[in-house]
Every structure is written in structure tokens, then in C-alpha cells.
């Protein structure tokens, strides 16, 4: 007996010939007949449609003022929530008391409430976490009747604008509620591929019709989890549970851009989030280890868990790795001791009993094309 949950679009995926695999408790399309490599390249060249309905969509409905909600939400994250304007989205991180990362997420100011999107594997814990800490100031309402689709790539705007003209003027990280066939789509101009594109929340009852309408647009093809992973790796984006987790701090992970000035030492709302002591100290002194980009010198991919060395000294581990189809070579990310984290540092990776050379390299591996 399988306890796997089925996506609302399960029938569509099977009709499209998807190979399904278990992921975060869901039966998910890992690839379609096009194959991971071609799907990846298609997304970079045209447009790819991803079903990310496994992710958690949660509404935070304030009981008092929106400002009180924003300040309460800030007590869980080292992030400036208060300055986020209506109609805008921001990247956030739930931290724990040790300064580790409980999850990474997106949150949007939708005027009178907040919409939060969290990782599938963490959503039950995240909802409990928010309920435990925010119930005095807001209702934490999981959205269980909407699919979440991502349309990514250079043709995403053209394709989606033919159905929903209002998306064209949106900029990166804008959010809007826009009509399509008598329903309201919740749209953000964002994604996790490094490409321009959108994430679209659509009521379950219309999701199949909406997905088919997108797939009928020129240049739009369905893309599975396999290519989603290689696209985000080329874009230098972290995958929760791999590149970041409860043992990594946001500073080690190089996510300091997500910690705005207001929450840092001498900021107007300094600290006041779980793990602030460690995180603010690391911002000041630098972390002992850092997440870096890594390029194997040879052609052999180096995967998660591969041990890294500087000369004979152990210096870290690869946390994500594989082949980058747009790069045309193997790529990886991992943590190394800060003394070995400078770009160009030559390291060794232990692969099948041999130590093979690789080089600390800039992230992202493939330039991003967000419409800022």
C-alpha cells in the first residue's frame, strides 16, 4: 500500500507520459518523454511548465493590524518583513535557536494579509511552527484547494500574457491577483530556475484546464523534477534538506542578501529572531565554513555527500552536484572551510576511491535572467 499523495494534475502528468517518483510524500513527475537534458535546455530556450503543487501555500490573516502581523512574522526570521510593500514578495528563512535553517520560503504582502509558500517536506512542521508562534496575531490558514504551477523561461511572459494580459508589466517578485475565466489566479513573477517566469496558484477545479491552456501555447513544454533540480543548481539556488538545513546557518549558506539591514547589528529592528546571537556574530566575524560553487576539472559528475579535501586536509562536503546541461559540464555546490572558499582555490574530491581535482567557482553557473 502506498501512502503517496497524488497531485491534482496526476491524470495530466500520466497522459503526458511522465515517469513518476515519490518526492516529499507525493507521486511527482520526475521527467517526461523529452528527458531531463532536453527539458532543461527547453526551459532555458523557450518555456517550461512545472507542477509544484506539493509545496505548501499558507495564508496569514491578521487578527489585528497588518503591521502587527509583519512584526510577528519577523520574530521567526532574520528578514525585514515590515518594509515589504503591498504587491511584493520576498525570500525568507525560518531559523532555529541554534541559528540553523528550519526552512526557506517566499512570502508576499497581499494588502490585508500575507501569502507564504514553503517547501513540501517542511510544510507540516512550518504550519505548526507558525501556529505555535503567531496564533495571537493571525490565523494560519493552509490553502488546500489550489494547485501551484511555475512557468519559466524566456517565452513565459508571452505565453502567460495570452491568457492573462495583466502579467506582462509585472516585475521580478511582484505579486498580483488576476482574473482568468471567472476565477482569480494568484500570480508572482518568480521561480526557482534562474529564468524569468511566473508562479501561478490556481483553484484545483480549474487547474487541469489552465495547465492545458498553457501547454497549448507555442514553446511551452512540461518539465519534471529532474530538470527543476539541474536548473536550480545552475542558478546557484539552495535546495532545502541538501544545501541548507538545521545544521547550516544563513551566513554559512551565503544567504546574507536575505538578511536586510534593519535586522542586523545597529539596524532599526536588530535581532529578535531565533538564532540571532550566532547569525549576527557570523555576519560580523565571518563563518567558519561557506557554501561555494564547485567545478570538477574532469567530466565525472560529483554528487551530494562527496568528501572534499585541500591537499591532504579534509575541508568539507558536496551538498548538491550533477551535470549542468546549459554549462555542458559537471557542477556542484558544497561547504568548505572559509580558508579554502576563495574563487579559484584548487580542491580534491574523493570519488570511487580516487581524489579528483575541482575548483572553487563563482555562483551562479548560468547567468540569471530575472526581469527586474
Amino acid at each position: 500500500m502506498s501512502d503517496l499523495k497524488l497531485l491534482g494534475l496526476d491524470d495530466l502528468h500520466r497522459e503526458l507520459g511522465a515517469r513518476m517518483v515519490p518526492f516529499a510524500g507525493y507521486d511527482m513527475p520526475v521527467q517526461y518523454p523529452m528527458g531531463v537534458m532536453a527539458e532543461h535546455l527547453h526551459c532555458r530556450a523557450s518555456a517550461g511548465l512545472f507542477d509544484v503543487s506539493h509545496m505548501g501555500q499558507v495564508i496569514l490573516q491578521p487578527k489585528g493590524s497588518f503591521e502587527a502581523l509583519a512584526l510577528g512574522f519577523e520574530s521567526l526570521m532574520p528578514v525585514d518583513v515590515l518594509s515589504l510593500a503591498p504587491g511584493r514578495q520576498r525570500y525568507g528563512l525560518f531559523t532555529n535557536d541554534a541559528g540553523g535553517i528550519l526552512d526557506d520560503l517566499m512570502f508576499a504582502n497581499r494588502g490585508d494579509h500575507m501569502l507564504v509558500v514553503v517547501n513540501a517536506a517542511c510544510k507540516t512542521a512550518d504550519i505548526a511552527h507558525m501556529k505555535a508562534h503567531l496564533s495571537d496575531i493571525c490565523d494560519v490558514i493552509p490553502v488546500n484547494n489550489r494547485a501551484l504551477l511555475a512557468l519559466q523561461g524566456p517565452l513565459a511572459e508571452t505565453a502567460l500574457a495570452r491568457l492573462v494580459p495583466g502579467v506582462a508589466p509585472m516585475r521580478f517578485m511582484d505579486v498580483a491577483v488576476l482574473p482568468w475565466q471567472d476565477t482569480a489566479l494568484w500570480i508572482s513573477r518568480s521561480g526557482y530556475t534562474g529564468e524569468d517566469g511566473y508562479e501561478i496558484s490556481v483553484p484545483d477545479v480549474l487547474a487541469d484546464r489552465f495547465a492545458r491552456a498553457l501547454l497549448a501555447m507555442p514553446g511551452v513544454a512540461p518539465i519534471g523534477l529532474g530538470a527543476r533540480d539541474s536548473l536550480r543548481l545552475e542558478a546557484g539556488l539552495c535546495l532545502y534538506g541538501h544545501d541548507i538545513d538545521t545544521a547550516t546557518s544563513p551566513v554559512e549558506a551565503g544567504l546574507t542578501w536575505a538578511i536586510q539591514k534593519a535586522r542586523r547589528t545597529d539596524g532599526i529592528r536588530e535581532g529578535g529572531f531565533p538564532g540571532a546571537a550566532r547569525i549576527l556574530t557570523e555576519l560580523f566575524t565571518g563563518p567558519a565554513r561557506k557554501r561555494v560553487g564547485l567545478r570538477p576539472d574532469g567530466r565525472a559528475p560529483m554528487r551530494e555527500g562527496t568528501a572534499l579535501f585541500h591537499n591532504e586536509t579534509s575541508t568539507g562536503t558536496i551538498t548538491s552536484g550533477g551535470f549542468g546541461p546549459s554549462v555542458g559540464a559537471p557542477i556542484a555546490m558544497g561547504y568548505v572551510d572559509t580558508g579554502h572558499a576563495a574563487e579559484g582555490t584548487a580542491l580534491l574530491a574523493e570519488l570511487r576511491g580516487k581524489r579528483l581535482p575541482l575548483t572553487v567557482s563563482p555562483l551562479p553557473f548560468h547567468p540569471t535572467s530575472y526581469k527586474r
Partner: protein
Amino acid sequence: MKYTEDHEWLRVEGDLVVVGITEHAATQLGDIVFVELPEVETMVAEGDEVVVIESVKAASDILAPLDGEIVEVNDKLTTKPGLVNEDPTGAGWFFKMQIDDLSVLDGLMDEDEYLEMIG
């Protein structure tokens, strides 16, 4: 052509045995991006890991199907690993083996038996 339960095919060529993976295996593995071949003149025993192949998603080992000596490897796969997907039973071969007694191939599956195994 003969087949193993590990989805390898074996073809006799003169007194040598050519080894590769089946189209079924290549499709299941997906886009192959790296192949690590053994050294020539290596003596191998049945079940030894002799080739590493990496697809976009995962690494897999290819096992020696028989006891013998690796006498030639398909160096083209080093720079064009995608040949394994494009032509698994032709240009995508991995290595050639010298074995003592070609009659051991009789114990392997023929095409019908292999097709039945993969359903």
C-alpha cells in the same frame, strides 16, 4: 546477441565478446553524461564493477558479465557519452573481452528471454 539480468548485451566478434547496455537500460537511466571505462589488459571476474556511468540524475555501475580480460574499450564514450543513449547496441558499446571459453555465453538469455524479463 545474448543478455544478462543486469541489462547488458554481449555480442561475439571473432574470438572477442563486445559488451554494452540494452536500449531498455539506456532509456531507464536517462541522458548519460559520463562514462568511466576500465584500463585495457585488466583481468576481471564476473560481477566486478568495470564501468561507471553517470546519467543526469545518478551514477550506476556496470559489472563484468563473465571472467576474462578487457582487451579494448570504446574511448569515444569519454568525450561523447551520449552515444550510449543514441545507439546503445552499436556505437555505444563499452568494452571488448577475451574469454577462455565462448560456450559460457550459451548460459545467458537470448533476446526473447530478455524481452520477457523486462516485460
